[in-house]
């Protein structure tokens, strides 16, 4: 009861819960699920953009893309480390990704069809991620909040790079401009869907808000993203593919068409265009690299044994 009171007091005071603090089981479980899903998203998210590394149209863009995909792997590492402070093991989380029991962001189940998709992901997908993640920097769980500060800083760098890449395309040849517009047309609604189901259907939100893991509802975040993105689209000179998108002076926000949540559910359930491919790639990396992990372990064991013998 003391522990519960302490937890409630910390949350109420907007202070951080730290790994050694007592915390309700449900809080711990919710965080593990969310952080793991976030980490998995970084890892799977390497694939759609990584798809263009060997084909990037200039060496400067290739370097930017290589570094970005590498950053995503780094984000995965911070986040798995944050999850581990909650008493789980990265290997177990990883196994749950591979078995399909834990999810990753559905956005990464869409294919990168052209080079412009790399820019559109940077602009829209990283943009949506940032809107989602900035409030997480104030999340009540300390290690997660600190990981998010680092992630957000890099993400906003990526988002600017994506924007800049699309900007160049939008001002390039007619074919480049068409490529940029086409990418925005395909990524807009999936990006809106990244904020999850509408608040009316969102199951976990209320409790997460009470625990100050979440600070805003799905629909609030989605609206924030729309408002921000409309203005950036104007700078780019590209059109968002929503004929009903318009300023609502009364609300002080843009009205917009909701994404297809049935499609979102289908993709979450595993039936998006690339779910099978993404998981198969991941499993293949693990399986075909198993002998490397075993070799490293065997070598480490030999070294340990040799050291022990030397000391005996």
């Amino acid at each position: 009861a003391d522990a519960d009171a302490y937890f409630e007091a910390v949350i109420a005071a907007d202070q951080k819960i730290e790994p050694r603090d007592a915390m309700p089981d449900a809080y711990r479980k919710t965080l593990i699920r969310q952080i793991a899903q976030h980490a998995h998203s970084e890892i799977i998210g390497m694939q759609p953009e990584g798809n263009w590394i060997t084909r990037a149209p200039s060496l400067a863009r290739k370097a930017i893309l290589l570094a970005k995909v590498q950053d995503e792997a780094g984000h995965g590492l911070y986040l798995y480390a944050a999850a581990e402070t909650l008493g789980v093991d990265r290997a177990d989380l990883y196994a749950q990704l591979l078995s399909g029991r834990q999810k990753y962001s559905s956005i990464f189940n869409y294919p990168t069809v052209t080079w412009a998709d790399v820019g559109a992901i940077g602009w829209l997908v990283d943009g949506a991620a940032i809107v989602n993640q900035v409030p997480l920097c104030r999340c009540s769980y300390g290690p997660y909040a600190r990981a998010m500060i680092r992630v957000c800083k890099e993400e906003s760098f990526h988002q600017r790079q994506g924007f800049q890449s699309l900007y160049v395309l939008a001002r390039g040849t007619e074919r480049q401009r068409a490529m940029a517009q086409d990418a925005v047309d395909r990524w807009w609604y999936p990006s809106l869907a990244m904020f999850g189901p509408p608040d009316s259907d969102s199951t976990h939100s209320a409790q997460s808000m009470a625990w100050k893991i979440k600070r805003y509802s799905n629909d609030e975040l989605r609206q924030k993203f729309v408002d921000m993105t409309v203005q950036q689209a104007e700078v780019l000179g590209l059109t968002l593919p929503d004929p009903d998108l318009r300023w609502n002076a009364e609300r002080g926000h843009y009205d917009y068409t909701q994404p297809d949540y049935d499609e979102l559910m289908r993709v979450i359930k595993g039936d998006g265009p690339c779910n099978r491919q993404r998981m198969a790639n991941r499993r293949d990396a693990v399986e075909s690299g198993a002998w490397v992990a075993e070799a490293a372990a065997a070598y480490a064991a030999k070294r340990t044994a040799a050291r022990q013998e030397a000391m005996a």
Partner: protein
Amino acid sequence: MNEDVGYLLGLADDALIASHRLSEWSSQAHDLEEDIALSNIALDLLGQARMLLTLAGEREGAGRDEDALAYLRDEREFRNVQLVELPRGDFAVTVVRMLFFSAYQAELYLRLEAESGERPDLAAIAAKSLKEVAYHLDHATRWTVRLGDGTAESHRRAQRAVDELWPYTHELFETEGDLRGAWLARVERVLAEATLTRPADDADRFRPTGGRSGVHTEHMGYLLAEMQHLHRSHPGAVW
């Protein structure tokens, strides 16, 4: 072509193509740490390639920048050694190739750095790259030892990689013969620690060559098709 330009392109293309093969590991490594490490090395080599291509383009004086040289040359104009263009292979091939190549780059860049009086621009690039190369070599060394002295399977794979790649190392020293002694000393030390057998030179008459004069293996064309297709599909576009 100016001899010096050809020489610079050789160095540049070695780095560019080695970087390409390493970047094929993206999302494919056995763990996240290694995925990051391989991307890092790919990124370093790409950076070296860009500096070297830019310098080669300046020396040539025909207005070709790094992208014109990377994307608009045909296969016969690429000067890299065949070692770096061979297919990615398994992790053992990647590690052993990195060992052979980084040890070569380390010796070469050391010498180029020392020759700063003759080629100050190139010496500056070499100096800047040496720290990177030392890291690559260290990484390759640690993994070669782990694989060679790990499990029976990893030993078998590592030895196979050594045996398959060794013949291609001779091309590295066709024009830099004086570096081979130091290279051998480095490499032999690592192979010994890794309990791997160094192939005899004379037992193997297979000494593929041609890369420096633009005659490549049949793998190179597919690599270039992938690398260049988008750029070539949009003539004159800016990215």
